[in-house]
């Protein structure tokens, strides 16, 4: 039997459960104080103020070494924090990228100076990063990026255009994937990652409104922007390897199946009320297909959570799990497309308004955002291509 697609059970340690209690108390207080309104897809909602609060609680960069502003806690504790924040619909978008991706990347590939300069600020919830990978002609085919950095005295001169850069307008820096030597036979060679401070001269940023009319992502144009040698991340020419190594973290987290959880939670109250009102014993809603349909969502959610936890536990132990992470993201994001649609059908069948109250609001938000779930961070078709490679098919 192949070991490839097995997901051994990971049991959370006591400290993680203790942290869970603290996070829940914090969220209760914040909700009571009106500091946020629970949202669908809340890791796409940015609130610098909320991020700073998390920073003050010691919950950003919490797995990093103390000298870089971290708390040296386990990745399973971070997992618990993350799932609690997402399930509560808290606005964690401002710091999301820097805490999830940039910090670990600097820890792994950055210089001491880069770590000291950026990581403590990230951990305080004060420094945000954007991802500069996609370009107009480089989406799924990321190695096709044309943004170019030319060698100059003391650094690099960066020219090119990035698109879909989430929250670049709120971010201080961007990690830009660019070409530092011409394309060769091996398309993955000659790519590098540069850390660009977004107030540098020569950068122009334009909003790209999403389908809801919101300013979420941006077009960022670099016109001969000077990037000093001290802002090269890792090795020149290793950009591809560095990008790929981050994928397991980026793809297997709870944000790949919990984005629309608040829709489900908000459905239960009205649904229970409807069921309570049905006195007709021949029409026992408690055992109706609607109850079963809710259960089916619970089953899928609980399973995805175990898969994601299994990866988190093994990543901590240093395993390399890109394929497993792709499995979680493919399954998880397909579930994210399913959840709002199922919730809508259940509600309509039970005679619950689709357009009013907390449920109506969260559902509307979810419907407008769900198409992005199976695109962002690598499309499902590309993920399944990676899984097929893991199966030895290609």
């Amino acid at each position, binding site marked *: *039997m192949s070991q490839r697609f097995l997901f051994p*059970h990971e049991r959370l340690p006591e400290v993680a459960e203790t942290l869970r209690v603290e996070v829940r108390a914090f969220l209760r207080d914040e909700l009571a104080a009106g500091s946020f309104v629970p949202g669908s897809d809340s890791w796409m909602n940015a609130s610098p103020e909320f991020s700073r609060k998390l920073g003050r609680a010691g919950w950003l960069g919490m797995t990093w070494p103390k000298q870089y502003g971290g708390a040296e806690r386990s990745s399973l504790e971070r997992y618990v924090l993350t799932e609690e924040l997402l399930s509560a619909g808290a606005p964690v978008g401002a710091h999301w990228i820097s805490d999830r991706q940039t910090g670990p990347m600097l820890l792994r590939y950055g210089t001491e100076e880069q770590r000291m300069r950026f990581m403590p600020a990230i951990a305080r919830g004060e420094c945000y990063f954007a991802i500069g990978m996609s370009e107009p002609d480089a989406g799924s085919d990321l190695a096709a990026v044309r943004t170019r950095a030319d060698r100059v005295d003391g650094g690099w001169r960066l020219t090119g255009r990035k698109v879909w850069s989430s929250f670049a307008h709120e971010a201080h820096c961007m990690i830009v994937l660019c070409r530092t030597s011409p394309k060769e036979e091996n398309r993955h060679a000659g790519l590098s990652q540069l850390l660009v401070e977004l107030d540098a001269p020569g950068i122009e940023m334009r909003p790209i409104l999403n389908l809801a009319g919101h300013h979420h992502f941006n077009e960022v144009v670099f016109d001969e922007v000077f990037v000093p040698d001290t802002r090269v991340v890792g090795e020149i020419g290793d950009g591809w390897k560095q990008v790929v190594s981050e994928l397991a973290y980026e793809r297997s987290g709870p944000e790949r199946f919990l984005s629309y959880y608040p829709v489900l939670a908000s459905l239960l109250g009205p649904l229970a009320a409807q069921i309570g009102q049905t006195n007709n014993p021949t029409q026992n809603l408690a055992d109706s297909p*609607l109850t079963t349909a809710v*259960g*089916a969502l*619970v*089953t899928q959610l609980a399973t995805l959570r175990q898969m994601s936890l*299994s990866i988190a536990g093994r990543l901590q132990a240093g395993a390399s799990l890109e394929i497993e992470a792709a499995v979680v993201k493919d399954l998880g994001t397909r579930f994210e497309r399913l959840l709002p649609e199922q919730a809508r059908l259940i509600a309509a069948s039970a005679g619950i308004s689709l357009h009013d109250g907390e449920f109506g609001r969260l559902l509307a938000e979810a419907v407008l955002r769900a198409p992005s779930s199976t695109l962002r961070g690598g499309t499902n078709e590309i993920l399944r291509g990676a899984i097929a490679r893991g199966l030895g098919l290609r």
Partner: protein
Amino acid sequence: MSESTELLLQTAHRIFTDLSTVECVNALEQGQWAQRLWDALDENGLTHALLPVDSGGSELGLADGVALLKVAGYHAAPIPLAEHWLAGLALVDAGQPLPGGALTIAPPDPARRAVPGTHRRVPWGRSLPVVALDGADGQRRLKLYPRAVVVTQNANLAGEPRDELDLARSEFTLDAASSIDAMRWLALGALMRSAQMAGALQRCLALASAYALERKQFGRPLAAFQAIQQELALLAGEVAAVDAAVDAAADAAEAGDGLFDIAVAKARASMAVDAATRIAHQVHGAMGFTYEHRLHHYTKRLWSWRDDFGTEVYWNTLLGRKALEVGGDGLWPFLTRLGSSAAA
């Protein structure tokens, strides 16, 4: 997983590879009992693996037992290992000795109180002693029927015996108090069947991947076509999901009650069957639709096993009721207790 468990699994893998052959699995469909296979498992201590040492077992935990049943499922083992274990666990729990040889159970039905009467779809009921739980009058009695009266011999889609028995007209040789209730028994059965399903699903993936690499059309292996790759990736996702749900449930059931974890596992396993078998068959083309090819050993079992010990509808309804009971604020705490040692 301990080293001794690892060793046990290797032994099981070897025995099943040698003896759970195409011929042997096909022979079951003709009503043949796989004696050589059973004996080999028995000689290697696998039939009693879950039982306490003083009952002749090796006191394997549920999680290890589940790992073993996955191997059995991977080989479509044509024997009632799970049923035998369920019977053994119940007898040991009631402080009773085990009769020699293979045992089966009358599948527990929490909605039904009394044992007497007819029992339908009893695995291997025609040939094995039947252990049944009698919940009449609020008592819990465990009964052993060495030779139950068979009303009709039936089989599931895979040809595994599923017989109708009349226990009211059958003699029992044991009537002991039991602490296991029907729900726990059903749940343990569901967990074990889910484990077999996880193994069978793994094998579907292995067979389909191998076939896609070997079969050529349009001058290329099927595996070279993106449409095939995408489908097999979906199949891999289903296999992975079931494996994760089953492992989590086994751990939870070993640590405590784990009822809801098992509900998730059996529901998820049953939910995976349609997509997984559809893809496995589609990739195999007509060859997979033949009796000659092995694929049907797995797909027919999956189509049958998804109904055993509660369908996905049964378990999802249980979970849905729980979700409605705990409500919007309670659902998340409920979900996060799953898979942990804390009782859900």
